[in-house]
């Protein structure tokens, strides 16, 4: 049941379902585990290629541990801060940002001192300096920006900032994607009155923070609303105020919300909710100065000229630290510096609204291609094609990042494509396994069939061999002649035959025949021919008549037009007279006193039986001498081949000539061995048949 479900639709339905599920997951990318994979992937891009930090437009004056040791616990008196601001302003920086919210009165403000000193007169109180006012005055130099913390609910001490963006497209204010804060924590108006602007310092920790306890900072807001009034983030506000009248702020809107923010001529691509995907650079301590050193005048004020300066916390006890995608832990103030650098370089990571659609298209395109093609591929090519697709997606992601800082998520696509691919590959393997089993079954079947066929051929061979007389046992007590024969088919069965039998007391009939062709068809015709030869030579007194009759009988039913060459001889074993007929057969050889002769068949030989039909065969006669050795053979001897030459009649004659005095029963095996030696392992060309007959004379003699 389960197998039938996953293999429905030629094994494509289930992978398709998995692909649809994958597409659904991709549509909601902010769920684990995809989010984790995606962030790890994007972080790795940045680790491979961090942002170059070749110029140092920002100086951070850090309120560090050394400063706290020298100047006392935080919060410092506002006049100390004012002194610090004055020192920095002396160098005429482009803008000064203070990453501190001065929300409450200074401890040393006259109002608070009056509470602590009950006897203070109103005059004394009026003559006391107000540190907040001193700070406000200090802030009036080159443009300064104060920090604001946006609050999502009203808190005690909450206060709206007083310096929103002066000119701004109000349509954007209604943008539902931008963050809106109902309240904020801002500096006292008396202090803020001296500043050129106020900027938000809220960070946007990743959503995964609660899950992985790792709170990596990847994105920072650029623009938000506090009580429906627009505010830039602190670093952007610093850039804006540094530009002065040229620093007008505009947003670029796309179909899916905000796409970029412009400050004067500077442009930064952002997400639809105004967040900047910060491209981090490697941290450096080069641009950090200690507040204590600045106050002590250890640095030439020129160090601040034409730079952005940020006062922030850089001490172990006070600072907020953030972890970057590069794996570094930095003071929060460093993020502001990196944002300013990004604005000036116009450089940020890009993940425009259409990029998720590209990813979806790649997912579906690759997925559907896999579903279309993998069932047609062998397993090894299926794996190879998936590997190539994976490499292409991952490499594509890196190339997009290197080329234009695009964040393309190849890793998630790869993960999402795995289930459909595994399902497809499973099907391929199941199919291959099934095919293999079927092939094995077929092989087994054909082996069994071959075995059966061999068995039948063996039976046929036994029967065919059984048709031939065993010359070794045929004439046990015969002293007038001896005979020996041998037949070896080229295949299991063959088309040659021989025969020898006594017609009466003194007439011995020997016959040899060769049906055209070999194998089973020839063997069937051989059986008929041999039978007819035996029957009809017994019936007819005259050999020529017998042969004509044999041909007539064979011709009666011969749809395959097979033909037979034959030589039949009848030896009067008393007189040594040999009668013979020949139908297209090789003339037998005679060894007489070491001399080699052949029986003269030239005048009487006709074509093979059934070749012409109705040929008027005649017999001839000759007189043998006592001791003559007759050799009847088929062309399996002369046409035996060793690959280049044929055994031929010369070799045959030479071999037979050596048989003159050899016992007859040894002649045939000796000649057969000579032929096989000559063949040297080559398969026999045709069936091989030999019949040797030695006439010892009327009284008989022994070999």
């Amino acid at each position, binding site marked *: 049941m389960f197998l039938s479900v996953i293999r429905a639709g030629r094994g494509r339905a289930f992978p398709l379902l998995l692909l649809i599920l994958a597409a659904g997951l991709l549509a909601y990318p902010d769920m684990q585990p995809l989010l984790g994979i995606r962030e790890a992937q994007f972080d790795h891009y940045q680790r491979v290629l961090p942002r170059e930090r070749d110029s140092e437009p920002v100086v951070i004056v850090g309120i560090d541990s050394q400063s706290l040791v020298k100047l006392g616990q935080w919060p410092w008196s506002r006049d100390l801060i004012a002194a610090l601001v004055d020192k920095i302003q002396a160098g005429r920086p482009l803008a000064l940002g203070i990453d501190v919210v001065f929300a409450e009165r200074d401890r040393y403000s006259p109002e608070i001192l009056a509470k602590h000193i009950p006897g203070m007169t109103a005059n004394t109180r009026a003559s006391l300096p107000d540190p907040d006012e001193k700070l406000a005055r200090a802030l009036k130099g080159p443009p300064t920006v104060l920090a604001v913390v946006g609050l999502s609910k009203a808190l005690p001490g909450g206060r709206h900032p007083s310096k929103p963006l002066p000119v701004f497209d109000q349509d954007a204010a209604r943008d539902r994607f931008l963050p809106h804060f109902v309240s904020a924590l801002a500096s006292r108006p008396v202090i803020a009155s001296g500043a050129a602007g106020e900027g938000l310092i809220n960070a946007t920790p990743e959503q995964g923070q609660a899950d992985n306890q790792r709170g990596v900072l990847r994105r920072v807001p650029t623009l938000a609303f506090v009580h429906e009034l627009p505010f830039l983030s602190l670093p952007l506000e610093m850039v804006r105020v540094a530009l002065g009248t040229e620093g007008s702020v505009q947003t670029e809107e796309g179909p899916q919300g905000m796409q970029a923010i412009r400050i004067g001529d500077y442009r930064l691509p952002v997400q639809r909710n105004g967040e900047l995907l910060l491209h981090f650079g490697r941290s450096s301590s080069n641009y950090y100065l200690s507040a204590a050193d600045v106050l002590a005048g250890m640095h030439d004020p020129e160090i601040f000229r034409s730079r952005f300066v940020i006062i922030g916390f850089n001490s172990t006890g006070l600072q907020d630290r953030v972890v970057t995608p590069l794996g570094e832990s930095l003071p929060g103030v460093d993020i502001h510096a990196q944002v300013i650098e990004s604005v000036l370089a116009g450089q940020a990571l890009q993940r425009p609204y259409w990029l998720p659609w590209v990813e979806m298209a790649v997912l579906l395109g690759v997925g559907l291609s896999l579903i279309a093609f993998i069932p047609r591929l062998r397993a090894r090519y299926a794996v190879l094609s998936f590997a190539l697709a994976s490499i292409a997606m991952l490499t594509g992601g890196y190339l997009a990042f290197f080329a234009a800082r695009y964040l393309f998520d190849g890793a998630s696509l790869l993960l999402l494509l795995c289930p459909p691919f595994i399902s497809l590959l499973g099907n391929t393997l199941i199919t291959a396994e099934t095919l293999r089993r079927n092939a094995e079954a077929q092989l087994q079947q054909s082996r069994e069939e071959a075995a059966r066929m061999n068995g039948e051929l063996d039976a046929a061979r036994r029967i065919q061999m059984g048709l031939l007389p065993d010359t070794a046992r045929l004439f046990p007590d015969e002293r007038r002649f001896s005979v020996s024969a041998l037949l070896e088919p080229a295949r299991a069965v063959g088309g040659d035959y021989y025969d020898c039998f006594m017609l009466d007391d003194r007439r011995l009939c020997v016959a040899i025949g060769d049906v055209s062709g070999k194998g089973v068809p020839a063997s069937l015709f051989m059986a008929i021919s041999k039978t007819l030869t035996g029957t009809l030579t017994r019936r007819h007194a005259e050999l020529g008549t017998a042969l004509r009759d044999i041909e007539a009988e064979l011709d009666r039913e011969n749809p395959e037009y097979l033909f037979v060459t034959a030589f039949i001889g009848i030896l009067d074993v008393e007189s040594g007279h040999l009668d013979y007929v020949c*139908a297209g057969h090789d003339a037998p050889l005679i060894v007489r006193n070491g001399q080699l002769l052949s029986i003269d068949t030239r005048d009487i030989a006709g074509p093979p039986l059934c070749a012409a039909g109705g040929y008027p065969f005649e017999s001839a006669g000759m007189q043998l001498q006592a001791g003559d050795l007759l050799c009847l053979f088929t062309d399996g001897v002369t046409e035996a081949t060793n690959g280049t030459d044929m055994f031929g009649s010369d070799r045959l004659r030479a071999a037979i000539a050596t048989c003159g005095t050899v016992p007859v029963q040894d002649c045939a095996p000796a000649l057969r061995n000579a032929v096989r030696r000559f063949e040297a392992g080559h398969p026999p060309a045709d069936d091989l048949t030999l019949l040797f007959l030695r006439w010892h004379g009327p009284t008989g003699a022994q070999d």
Partner: protein
Amino acid sequence: MNLPTREQAGVLIVSVSGRIDHIASEEFTRALEPLLTGCVKGKASLLLDFSAVDYISSAGLRVLMMASRRAKAQQGTFAIAALQPLVQEVFAISRFNLIVPCYASVDAACKVVGA
């Protein structure tokens, strides 16, 4: 099996080459088939030029026998010319010269079987 043909004095001469053994005989049969179809009464005589045939087995002889029978049935003329000595010997032993007319050379054959 490739059987190049040419026509000379009204005789279609077919050049046969190689060994016509058990295996080649089947191909020989197929190659000869279309030529035999045209070997009918009144058409050009069919002459096999055997000058390049090294060897012929009994299976090859059977193909010739059947070709001869068919030509005879169609009242066409079928002959063989220019046998090599070894092939000549096979023909002599098997008396196939009684079944298929054999000529010493193509020219000699053309004089006889030509129109």
